[in-house]
């Protein structure tokens, strides 16, 4: 109950911080739409040349892209801005003020800064889904939807855990403060279904840096093609990974020695 209250208070604070800049809503909103269009263009060109790519038709691939657009909005609109703050805190030594509060520090820093205009990405993703399913000519069953929601949950948790791991590096090496940007740019790979990759890359993007889990599995779930073993594996793997990230975070803040004078 207390945790819920903290989350609510923290969200309200970061939202009111963001709405001070009203013009940003318009400008950043328009930019989000432009980038969505930029993301779509390559697919349109590719599907002029082919009917399907590695077994994916155009509307099916749109589903992957929809998850990508939505998750990217979440990553760049909520996860990254907040965790960038942590790196800033470590460098300036102001993380003291966060650690002193009688609330879990990870919870506190994770919701510190939000860019609400990136919610346009979520609407964009919804529009892409609607269009894709109209093209497919059928709608997902309620089981599929439930499964997709579960997969979305694992996607968000894994994405967040990777970001926490990347930020934990800042406690050991402050100099590499742009590692989070590197993760953001690698995340761009998740716009394609994972079956595009072969050999080593396929293994890397499924198990090491589980981008497949983030966009391909939820899309498969919507299509009713996700098998039970894969689902169970994804859920268990996600739980283990989140616990691992949490453990690393705790080790990292234990090493924190307030850099300021």
């Amino acid at each position: 109950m207390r945790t819920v209250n903290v989350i609510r208070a923290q969200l309200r604070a970061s939202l009111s911080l963001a709405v001070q800049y009203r013009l940003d809503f318009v400008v950043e909103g328009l930019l989000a739409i432009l980038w969505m269009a930029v993301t779509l263009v390559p697919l349109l060109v590719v599907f002029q040349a082919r009917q399907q790519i590695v077994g994916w038709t155009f509307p099916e691939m749109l589903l992957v892209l929809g998850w990508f657009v939505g998750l990217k909005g979440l990553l760049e609109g909520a996860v990254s801005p907040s965790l960038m703050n942590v790196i800033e805190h470590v460098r300036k030594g102001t993380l003291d003020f966060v650690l002193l509060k009688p609330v879990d520090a990870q919870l506190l820093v994770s919701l510190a800064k939000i860019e609400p205009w990136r919610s346009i990405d979520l609407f964009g993703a919804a529009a892409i889904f609607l269009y894709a399913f109209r093209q497919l000519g059928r709608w997902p069953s309620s089981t599929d939807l439930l499964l997709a929601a579960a997969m979305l949950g694992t996607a968000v948790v894994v994405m967040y855990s990777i970001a926490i791991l990347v930020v934990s590096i800042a406690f050991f090496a402050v100099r590499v403060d742009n590692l989070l940007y590197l993760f953001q740019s690698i995340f761009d790979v998740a716009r394609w279904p994972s079956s595009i990759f072969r050999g080593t890359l396929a293994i890397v993007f499924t198990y090491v840096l589980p981008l497949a889990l983030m966009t391909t599995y939820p899309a498969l779930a919507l299509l009713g093609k996700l098998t039970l073993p894969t689902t169970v594996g994804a859920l268990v793997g996600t739980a283990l990974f989140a616990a691992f990230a949490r453990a690393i975070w705790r080790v990292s803040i234990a090493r924190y020695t307030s850099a300021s004078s």
Partner: protein
Amino acid sequence: MRHALKAFPQLLRTGFAEAVAYRAEFLIWMFSTNMPLVMLALWAAVARSGPVGSYTQKGFAAYYLAALLVRLLTGSWVVWEMTMEIRQGTLALRLLRPIHPLLAYSAENLAAVPMRGIVAIPLIVIFLWNVRDQLGGDPILWTILAPALLGSWLLTFLVMSIIGTLGLWFESASSLFEAWLGISAILSGYLIPLDLFPAAVREVALVLPFRFLLSFPVELVLGRVDRWHALALLVAQWGYVAAALLATRLVWRSGLRRYAAYGG
């Protein structure tokens, strides 16, 4: 002007030392430039079942590796630096120095090119070696490549300077640059080779300045243009460079009158 030319080599040395000092960040920024590889993954999968247009699987590999190389060598960051310095008021420090701030910026950005080259060239040479049969064989085209790359670098830098200077008028100049980036990702051939677009889009893309930022040098590397056409394109590119230079001067002069050095 003579004064500035004398100072320029030292500015380059300073810029190079800075790039070396921040090598870890520098490396990570370079690795963040991976969009051509992301696009290559898609097209390589598509071309497994046969060539698309005039591109085989190897053709795509050569195209996107060349695009990555051109992007790494001609990149700048001046627009971010300018908008930040304008907002924080530290541009005043640059204005006090006896050298034009844009000249100083250009030295800093140019000085990073050797560092980029050192990091990128070994990697990309290996890749290009594997797809060397896709590269152009005409020595004239390779000769034109040098001024074309310089032209691309200048054009990128000048556009950034123009938009950065607009920061003197309004705060969201860096958002304007974001928009430019998005449009140029499509129209410069960064995401998709221009000749794969439908004819109507291609016609427009070929005359706009975006092509000369990236696609033109890449076409030279792949030998996809003939000699006379390449020369004509080089002239066109430098025409755009001259126009951008003029625009930069105009914008800078009238912008400076508005400058109030707020903040610091």
